């Protein structure tokens, strides 16, 4: 069978990333230009600054990607683009680049949903086997999705308010951690003990999540201590918060696994880099005899390789977009 090479372009937020992936599973180059150091100065991603950085970087990243893979555009079978959801100004730079290459070289254009990309980041662990349950945890998403086949997404539940990654960043700010606070909070949690009592949000039988109440509880607790002129232990607060978040995610994931009798669990999205969650998910897998897949750390954050991998399977299914493709800031997983 002929090898298929997919170019994947990702610019949804503050990373310009372009990759070439062979047959959906072998990453030949994955170039990521991160803007974290710039946005750090503002305590979060500034959309207009992100867009300005993307356009400065786009051809530089393209160049490096092809050099590393030692390939040229003529070797590429199709171009996969993360067209949404994300920051619209950021998405547009990747989109126009993908459309331009598709036009210049007359190569198929494959539209890829950003979260589908995160799911397919697990292809680099091993090819997905179905049915599988995907726990999607990122700055914009918290969802449980059942997949019976490639690109068949059945949403079982999702967050009713804040996404888990968003909650991590907000709580990190309360603790006084610099942006991006989520990974630092995780690290801090590993050093502390969960001594503070925090509510378990939406502790019900649904597959849904809610994190805004938990965030408020942390803010209130911090406030109470300030009024009493006592100091909270940041590492113990981090540990207490992390424990509740992980227990909530695991509880709903476990219920979904038991109800669907799924024997495969994958974790996807930026928060899958969280060490506390990674350990808990592996333990759950052992307990239930379920095979667990979590992307290696380099594929947890936004990257072009995951888009190229998803693009490969979408290509095989005949999914194509024409040059009228537009970016979407919001979009249902499909």
């Amino acid at each position, binding site marked *: 069978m002929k090898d298929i090479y997919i170019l994947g372009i990702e610019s949804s937020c503050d990373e310009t990333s372009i990759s070439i992936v062979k047959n959906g599973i072998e990453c030949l180059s994955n170039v990521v230009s991160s803007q974290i150091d710039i946005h750090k*100065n*503002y305590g979060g991603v*500034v959309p*207009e*600054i992100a*867009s*300005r950085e*993307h*356009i*400065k970087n*786009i*051809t*530089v990243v*393209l*160049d490096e990607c092809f050099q590393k893979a030692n390939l040229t*555009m003529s070797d590429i079978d199709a171009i996969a683009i993360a067209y949404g959801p994300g920051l*619209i*100004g950021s998405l*547009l*730079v990747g*989109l*126009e*680049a993908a*459309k*331009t*290459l598709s*036009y*210049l*070289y007359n190569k198929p254009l494959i539209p890829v949903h950003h979260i589908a990309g995160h799911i397919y980041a697990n292809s680099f662990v091993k090819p997905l086997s179905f049915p599988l349950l995907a726990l999607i945890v990122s700055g914009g998403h918290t969802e449980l999705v059942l997949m019976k086949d490639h690109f068949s997404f059945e949403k079982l539940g999702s967050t009713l308010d804040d996404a888990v990654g968003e909650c991590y960043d907000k709580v990190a700010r309360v603790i006084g951690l610099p942006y991006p606070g989520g990974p630092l909070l995780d690290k801090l949690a590993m050093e502390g003990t969960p001594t503070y009592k925090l509510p378990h949000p939406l502790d019900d039988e649904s597959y849904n999540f809610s994190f805004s109440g938990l965030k408020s509880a942390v803010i209130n607790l911090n406030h109470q201590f300030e009024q009493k002129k006592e100091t909270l232990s940041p590492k113990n607060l981090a540990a207490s918060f992390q424990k509740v978040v992980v227990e909530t995610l695991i509880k709903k994931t476990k219920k979904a696994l038991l109800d669907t009798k799924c024997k495969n669990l994958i974790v996807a999205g930026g928060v899958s880099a969280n060490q506390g969650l990674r350990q808990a998910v592996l333990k759950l897998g052992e307990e239930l005899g379920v095979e667990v897949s979590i992307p290696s750390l380099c594929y947890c954050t936004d990257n072009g390789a995951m888009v190229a991998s998803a693009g490969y399977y979408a290509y095989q299914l005949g999914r194509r977009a*024409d*040059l*009228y*493709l*537009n*970016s979407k800031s919001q979009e249902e997983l499909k």
Partner: protein
Amino acid sequence: MTVLYLDTSSSLFCAAIYQNGKVVNQVQKNLEKDMSKEALPLMKKMLEDVSISPNDVDKILVCNGPGSFTGIRIGMTIAKVYAWALQKDISVVSSLEAMAISNDAPVVLPLIDARRGYVYGALYQGEKEIISNGYYRLDYLLEQAKSYEPYQIISNNDFPGLTKETYRPNFQKIIETYQNREAISPHLANPCYLKQTEAEEKQNA
């Protein structure tokens, strides 16, 4: 020489293709929100209609602003990637420069509304930039321009109390004037916003 001209810095999509000394095809279309969707297909059709393939183009002349931040990036991304991929020459033209050169008046004041009493503007005598491209308070710019009266204001926006002519791009003149501008690396062909982001302004305040 075959030159591709592209300007997506306002809601008016402008593109032209120039071959053997004359514009052989052109497009002007008001796109508002659809710029990202339609810019590339429109450019493709313009070239196909005169049987010019991407590789036939020798040079890309692209407007790098000022204007709509998102708009500028659409045309600039297309131009940068095009020039990088097919190793074509690329040069940038200011949108104010394009507006000024399109008009025949001896002194021209091109203006783009930047809201809250501010404009992107410049003053040109032919190709010569008398007041440099900048982000100005409108009243300040008019004061500065006073000694060069009479001048012709060119704009696609309305400014109360000011008489202006609507911008009608003269592609032949724009391309003839700027086609020999020195080519730059596609990596360094970047937008010229003339204005910091609000976050940067706040931080520098």
